[in-house]
Every structure is written in C-alpha cells, then in structure tokens.
C-alpha cells in the first residue's frame, strides 16, 4: 500500500478501489455481527465461497463477511447486491440452494424470505418494514463492507471527510461546522459535542487527548458494538478529524475486552489507516500528527464514566473523581481530554462531508441527526436500528420492532437501563428526542430500548437494575453504596409483602440523598428506574404494601 500524501493521491486511490468494487457482478453480504452469534456467519460465508468455487464464479461474485446487519433475531442474515435480496435465518446447508437458485437462476428461495401479516412474503430490503423505515446513515455501511477492508470503506466514500478537513479546512472551520450541526453526545448525556470540543481546544496545554468511549456497559445496549465491529473506520475517521479540530495528537479507543472479533477489527483498522498515512506523522501532508492506542474495559459498568475511564487509561483503578474540574480541561494525566461516545464520533465524518446544514435538517428542533437504538426484551424484531430523531416510539416498537411478538400487550418501554426510566404505553406516541424522553424521566441514555409486556413486573425490573449497580459501581461513596444496599433490602421487603408506606418514604429519602450527594453520575441516577416505576406504576407497589388501619 502506498502512503497517501495529497488530495490527488486520495482521488486516485478512490477511483482504483471503486473500480475494483464495481468489477464484481454481485456481492453476497453475510452478517458476521455479534448480535446473532458470529460463528454461524463465518460458516455460511465459507460455504457460499465453496459453492461459488465449484461453479467457477468466485471472480464474478464476491462473498463478504460483514458486521451486524441489524435484524438480530432473524439472524444470520445475508443480503445479495445489487438486487438487495435479503435472506434470514440462513443455515450453512442453505448455501447450495442460494447459489443455484438465486445466483444462477435469479429465483428467490422462498423459505428464507421475511414474512409478516401486513406485508406478506418480501424478499427485498426496500419492502421490509424493519429496514425501509430506517435512515441508515451510519449503519448503512455495515451491510456493504468488509470491516477489515479500508478499501471497501473508501470506495463507499470513506475518509473523504478526513481528506476534506485536512486539505481544505482549518481546525476552527471543522469546529465551527460541528458546532453548527448541533451534534449532541450519544453516550447518555446528550451534551453538545462542539461545545465540549471547544473547551478542550481552548484549554491551555501542549498535550491534549481525544478518546472514544466504546465501553458500552449498559445492559441491553449493543449498537456501539455494531458500529465499531461493522465499520471501525468511520469512528476512526471521526476521531482523527476531531483531534485535528481540537489540537490533540494522541487518541485512545476504549473498548470491550470480551469481543475478540471486535478488537481484531479495530486493530486492523488502525494498522490499515496507518499504512495509508491517515494516522502517524504529517497526515496527508498537512503537518498534523496523530496516533491511537487501544485500551480495554475488563467489564465493570462504572468504568464507562468519563473520569473513571480516564483513570483506567492511565492503568489505574477506574474510580470516578469528583468533577469540580471537567475532564475536558483536566483529564488523562491532568491534560485536557475530550471524550465522546462511539456513535458521536461516527457522526463526525457525515457532518464534515455533507455540511452542518444538511445534517441539521434531519431530526427534531433540538435533537439532530439519527440515533442508533438496540431493541431488546419483549420485542419481535430484536436488533439494531438507526432512525431519525423525532420518530415516535410507537413507530419504533410496532412498525420496525413488530410489537411484543408474544401475544401479550405492550406495557412500557425502558430507556437508559440502570440510569434511565420507563415510558408507559399510554405515552408511546412520544417522539424519540433527548429532551422529550428526559422530561418523562426516561432519558434515552446510550440508546438501549428494552420493551416490556403486560406480564412484566416493575419491581422485578427495578430490583434487577439495583442488583446490577450494587456490583457494577465502585463502592467509594456512601450515598451510592449504602443507599443501594438499603434500598435493595427495602424493595425485597415490599416484594415479600411486608413493606409499609413508611418503607416507601424511606426509599424516597435515600433516593433524594443519592441524587444530591453521590460522587458520580452513577450514584446520582441510580434511583432513576425506581423513581420512574414509582411514578408510572405505583399500583404495583401499593398492592403489595401492608394495609394500614
């Protein structure tokens, strides 16, 4: 591979990889994502390759093992381009039939096709409601590229934004564009990314850092993995652009320790980007230097909190620090450090490539762009989707998600996991929007949407989250640690039928203190699911309390 050191070099490269991609008559994309157990994907891909080999078609028809396609509960899925024929729940032994029927005879294999009561049997992506209501600006790459191939990404327009930023824009131009786009952080808080970048950019220091938060510790959230595993380059590209705007020369990717394929894809992405000179010294001849290092989370929820995450990048215990000085001013090694979520970074190339004006046409007044959501719990089409902000939760759950899928009525949807809250079915027409959801006590968090049906017990759910936090917090501060300990005991008492109204009052008191006096956001929001359940599902508590005379 040659180093790319100018705009012209890049155009030549892009033309070359595009013509290579266009030389295949068809591409069979096989989902190897983590959502439907990637091993099957690998087997299916090699079975398809074998079949093609036998027929002498391996030059004309390419098989790609890709990242998560999104429709996890129907996985493994394959998509045949250019027709966009989608086969679901594919098995290794289906390979022969797929090649003989679809590839050789242009016939659909009926039994592998999506079907529901409304649309009947539909082989094409464009007719499947799960797909055709999405706006897959980020996820769209997943079905088309081999995550290990930088050329695939470049052929589809990847790294053009980086080249544009470094050859045509100044760092402040980039910053202004991000500010203008109103991009808000996707990791939970919805904090304006441009504003955070500016703080780090303006902080006085020669050394600055940029970091990708790919910890994804929220149970039920798996969209960051879908991006990083399916197209690590889009995140890397965003990170390099951000580093350029902020003035950082060192970046870190903090990601999961328990997903070897994901890690391998990130490592490969970094080394390929280095070979082309998108990472390293004097990137694209701009004089800008940048390097990236990977760190692993080892699996405790609290380490996703910004100050804890930064400690663990230093090799120290991931305990949060009180944030009287923001990490954007004093983070890793006390240097200004800008942390953003995987999905936040993935939005950056889109904004730079297409402009803030284009971007801010998508979404609602104050929540711009798209959001990735992972659907789990009582839902027919569990998986990862990408929809514009503003879509109603009803549309997400029923039209894309296919409803509960088990014959039971919807009860509520729960956002934000252990730091979030539930939205009862009466409010299901609420739009997907940072502020609208937060106002109802169910901040969208990282985007894990848990669907509950009428048989689900809110006390059980709330207890689950507190049990989770009891082992996944650091245990340093009293309100969080001892508060969780006592609330769990009181909840158990209520579940056992011996709780009193006074116990509920005591719980509320502890919640207040946790919110006001805990050290980090984990403790300060630990009571969130519980308070949300008390608000919307009080009957489930009351019916278990000892009746007072």
């Amino acid at each position, binding site marked *: 591979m040659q180093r790319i050191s100018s705009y012209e070099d890049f155009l030549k490269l892009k033309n070359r990889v595009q013509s290579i991609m266009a030389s295949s008559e068809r591409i069979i994309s096989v989902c190897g994502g*983590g*959502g*439907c*157990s990637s*091993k099957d994907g690998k087997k299916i891909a090699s079975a398809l390759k074998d079949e093609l080999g036998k027929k002498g078609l391996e030059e004309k028809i390419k098989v790609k093992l890709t990242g998560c396609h999104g429709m*996890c*509960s129907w*996985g493994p899925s394959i998509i045949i381009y250019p027709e966009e024929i989608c086969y679901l729940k594919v098995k290794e032994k289906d390979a022969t039939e797929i090649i003989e029927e679809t590839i050789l005879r242009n016939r659909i294999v009926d039994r592998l096709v999506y079907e529901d009561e409304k649309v009947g049997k539909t082989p094409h992506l464009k007719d499947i409601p799960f797909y055709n209501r999405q706006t897959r600006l980020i996820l769209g790459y997943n079905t088309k590229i081999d995550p290990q191939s930088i050329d695939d990404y470049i052929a589809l327009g990847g790294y053009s934004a980086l080249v544009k930023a470094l050859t045509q824009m100044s760092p402040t131009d980039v910053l202004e564009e991000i500010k203008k786009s109103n991009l808000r952080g996707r990791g939970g808080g919805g904090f304006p990314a441009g504003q955070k970048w500016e703080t780090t950019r303006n902080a006085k220091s020669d050394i600055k850092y940029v970091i990708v938060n790919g910890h*994804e*510790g*929220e*149970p*039920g*959230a*798996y969209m960051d*993995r879908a991006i990083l595993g399916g197209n690590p380059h889009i995140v890397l590209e965003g990170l390099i652009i951000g580093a350029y705007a902020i003035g950082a020369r060192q970046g870190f990717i903090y990601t999961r*320790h*328990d*997903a070897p394929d994901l890690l391998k894809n990130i490592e490969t992405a970094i080394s390929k980007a280095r070979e082309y000179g998108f990472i390293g010294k004097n990137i694209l001849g701009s004089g800008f230097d940048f390097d990236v290092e990977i*760190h*692993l989370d*080892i*699996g*405790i*929820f609290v380490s996703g909190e910004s100050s804890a995450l930064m400690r*663990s*990048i*230093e*090799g*120290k*215990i*991931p305990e949060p620090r009180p944030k009287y000085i923001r990490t954007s001013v004093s983070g890793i090694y006390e240097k200004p450090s800008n942390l953003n979520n995987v999905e936040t970074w993935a939005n950056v190339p889109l904004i730079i490539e297409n402009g803030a004006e284009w971007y801010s046409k998508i979404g609602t007044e104050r929540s711009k762009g798209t959001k990735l959501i*992972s659907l*789990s*719990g*009582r839902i027919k089409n*569990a*998986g990862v989707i990408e929809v514009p902000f503003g879509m109603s939760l009803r549309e997400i759950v029923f039209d894309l998600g296919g409803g509960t899928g088990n014959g039971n009525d919807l009860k509520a949807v729960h956002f934000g*996991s252990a730091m979030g809250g539930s939205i009862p079915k009466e409010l299901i027409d609420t739009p997907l929007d940072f502020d609208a959801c937060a106002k109802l006590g169910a901040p969208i968090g990282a985007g894990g949407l*848990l669907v*509950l049906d009428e048989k*689900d017990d809110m006390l*059980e*759910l709330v207890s*689950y*989250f507190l049990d*989770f936090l009891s*082992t996944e917090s*650091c245990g340093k501060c009293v309100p969080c640690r001892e508060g969780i300990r006592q609330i769990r005991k009181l909840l158990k008492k209520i579940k056992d039928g011996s709780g009193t109204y006074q116990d509920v009052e005591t719980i509320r008191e502890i919640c207040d203190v946790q919110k006001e006096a805990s050290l980090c956001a984990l403790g300060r929001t630990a009571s969130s699911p519980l308070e949300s359940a008390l608000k919307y599902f009080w009957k489930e508590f009351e019916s278990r309390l000892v009746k007072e005379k």
Partner: protein
Amino acid sequence: MDYLESIIEKYSRRRNFLIEMLMDVQHEKGYIPRESIFYLSKRLSVPVNEVMRIATFYKTFSLKPKAEHVIKVCSGVSCYIRGGREVVEKLENLLGIKVGDSTPDMKFSLELSSCSGRCASGPEIEIDGEVYGNVKPDDIEGILKKIG
C-alpha cells in the same frame, strides 16, 4: 515468571497497560496468582495495594484458580426478563454452587458475564467459549452432560 516477563514486554513495560497485563495473566493462567501481583508491582513500580485493588475490582479477574469448564451466564437485562434468572437458579441447583464459585471437584465454575449484546437470542450461556442461545432451564442438564 517467564510468562509475566513476556506479558510485560508485550506492553513495553508501560504502566498504563497494567490492567491489560492483569487480563493477560488471567487469560494465561485462568486466574491471577498472588505472586504475579507482587511481581507486576515490583517491575512496574506500582504499589502492591494498587495492583491488588485492581486485581479484585473486576468480576473478570479471579485470585482463585477456576475449574476445568467455566460457565458464564449473560447478566444482561433482556436475558434476565426472558428467563435468565431461572437459568441461573437451575445451574446453581444442578451444580450445588452459587454464582462465583466452583464445584468441589473443580469441574465447573459458575459466573455472570456482562451483557453480551446478543439480546435477540437470550437467555444465553457460554461454556468454554461456546455460546448457547435461547436457553431454557430444562435444556441445561443436557448441555452439561454434553460437556462432561
């Protein structure tokens, strides 16, 4: 201590990879031997109590050797409401141990793991790297028999 030296070298003796080094130790030995804590402390000039604290902080790490087969149950919320709790109970009953322990014959260890992101096919258990999706309590005896 050769394995420790090669782990330390893999990260160029850089202290900020201490957590990753401990993970490699856990990987290599199946647990974190006490001596390795002292060794890393000395070689990286990190106080012993800091290494100890990290080595006990994560559920992924264990100071005790693990059994021949490690059973991990996904502790994610979706698995839980779809019957994961019953799966854990069944495993505890069948093995006669609690989560976090190993059977006396050191055949099975039982653990919870972080949400695997395979919510679409939960409840899920993973044994020696093999993933079993949509597990029901009644399937477990069969799965264990197959393992040994």
